[in-house]
């Protein structure tokens, strides 16, 4: 039972079917002249349209990238490069506003920029995981060149008020980038309605292939590329087009778009059942992050007295594949920066569990998952010195 769809999601067989011809006979290069090239170019156009539709953009506002991480890097670094040309000693144009709970693709890009003299405001969030719009507005200054705030959070699923963030950004003529990697296909994402100027998305989170993503850049906003070369993607992102993956992203976007209503209902039903059953059956278990402004496919719970890695490993033995916010499961042994931003103490954030729902999960599986969690938590509490049996 795979409930780790926010980490990565299985490729939809329909998507793979759409890709296969381009992995086999249609291996052409979109820039060649003969028929193979023409077919590749058409496939590219179609996929661009499919992706644009998903977020209510125009086709030529979509740039294909190698994934969400590259999209985030491009958004931020391109703005920096662009502003470098306008910077003067009086106007260093070196301020960026983001939040404490961004994905590392944004956070570590910002930290990298700090090494080169950039000032970053990391907005805090409240205990629900939401930023404060007043604080955002107060953080803006003359040197602010970008506001980058995620659409929804990859750990706790909290959805930020993008529409209002965009309004504030535009009041001060600052571009607004939103990392919507976890939102697209899960909740309505509409760049026009939500005042988003630059947006990142990734295929492998919506049952598309890995290694492909897109960056939306609003028409009129010209950005220097992060990757230079042969002039593909209208010179905005060079490199031989990864046609099979692009076709896969297009198909995944189309399916996500068509099924959005259904998906939301499906996910929410399962999510609510999981939350309800787990919190009633397990004492001292608490939901992390807002219940109201939350992705329909995200369950994030902490259990006192236990540690997350052992929880995950035990669950995997029972066939339930999930994630944790525990420090012990990461390579750097730092606990979740998101849970820290929620002011949850390390000892408590350690015992966190993320279940992220996908189309393959069924309501009938909820009881199995809940039972596995209940048993495991009970076992680990039994052997825990921090739990009084």
């Amino acid at each position, binding site marked *: 039972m795979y409930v780790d769809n926010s980490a990565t999601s299985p490729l939809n067989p329909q998507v793979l079917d759409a890709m296969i011809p381009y992995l086999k006979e249609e291996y052409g290069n979109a820039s060649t002249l003969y028929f193979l090239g023409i077919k590749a170019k058409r496939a590219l156009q179609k996929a661009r349209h499919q992706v644009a539709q998903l977020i209510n953009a125009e086709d030529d506002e979509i740039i294909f990238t190698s994934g969400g991480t590259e999209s985030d890097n491009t958004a931020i670094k391109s703005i920096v490069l662009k502003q470098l040309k306008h910077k003067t000693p009086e106007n260093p144009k070196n301020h960026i506003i983001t939040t404490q709970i961004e994905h590392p693709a944004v956070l570590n890009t910002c930290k990298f920029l700090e090494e080169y003299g950039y000032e970053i405001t990391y907005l805090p969030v409240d205990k629900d995981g939401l930023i404060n719009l007043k604080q955002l507005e107060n953080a803006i200054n003359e040197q602010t060149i970008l506001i980058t705030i995620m659409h929804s959070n990859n750990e706790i699923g909290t959805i930020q008020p993008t529409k209002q963030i965009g309004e504030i950004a535009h009041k001060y003529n600052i571009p607004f980038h939103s990392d919507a990697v976890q939102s697209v296909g899960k909740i309505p994402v509409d760049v026009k309605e939500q005042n988003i100027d630059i947006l990142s998305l990734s295929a492998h989170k919506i049952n598309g292939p890995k290694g492909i993503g897109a960056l939306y850049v609003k028409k009129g906003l010209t950005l220097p590329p992060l990757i230079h070369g042969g002039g593909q993607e209208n010179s905005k992102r060079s490199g031989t087009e990864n046609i099979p993956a692009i076709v896969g992203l297009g198909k995944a976007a189309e399916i996500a778009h068509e099924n959005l209503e259904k998906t939301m209902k499906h996910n929410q039903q399962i999510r609510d059942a999981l939350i309800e059953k787990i919190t009633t059956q397990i004492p001292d278990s608490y939901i992390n992050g807002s219940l109201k402004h939350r992705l329909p496919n995200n369950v994030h719970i902490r259990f006192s*007295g*236990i*540690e997350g*890695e*052992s929880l995950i*490993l*035990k669950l995997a*033995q029972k066939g339930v594949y999930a994630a944790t916010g*525990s*420090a*012990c*499961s990461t*390579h*750097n*042994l730092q*606990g979740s920066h998101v849970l820290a931003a929620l002011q949850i103490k*390390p*000892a408590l954030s*350690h015992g966190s569990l993320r279940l992220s729902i996908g189309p393959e999960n069924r309501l009938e599986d909820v009881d199995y998952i809940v039972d596995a969690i209940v048993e495991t938590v009970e076992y680990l509490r*039994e*052997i*825990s*010195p*921090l*739990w009084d049996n």
Partner: protein
Amino acid sequence: MDYTQKVIENYTNPQNTGVIEDADGEGTVGNPVCGDIMTIYIKVDENENIEDIKFSTFGCGAAIATSSMITQMAKGINIDEAYEITRNDVAEELGGLPAVKLHCSNLAADALQKAIENYKKERN
């Protein structure tokens, strides 16, 4: 490096978990690196051999596996010998640990030493 088969066995089916209510010695350590916590309880016989040993842990898979392993290694041997068990001995016995998880084996070795020290102090 991933968890070895031995590690997996030991956190899947940890040996000697629990509490010894009338323990002769007891040691609790917290891991400064990650914040995890472990307690080891020992029961010592008249020859100063470790008759019984149990642990409880709030820790990762590696912490559970090393605890399980060290309790097996220490059970039945003399406390002075048991005192000499290092984190490397435990890691070796487990077929190695991922680099980032080496610190976890400290927990077990330190807790055992603390329990033995506690026993000696109590006895005197």
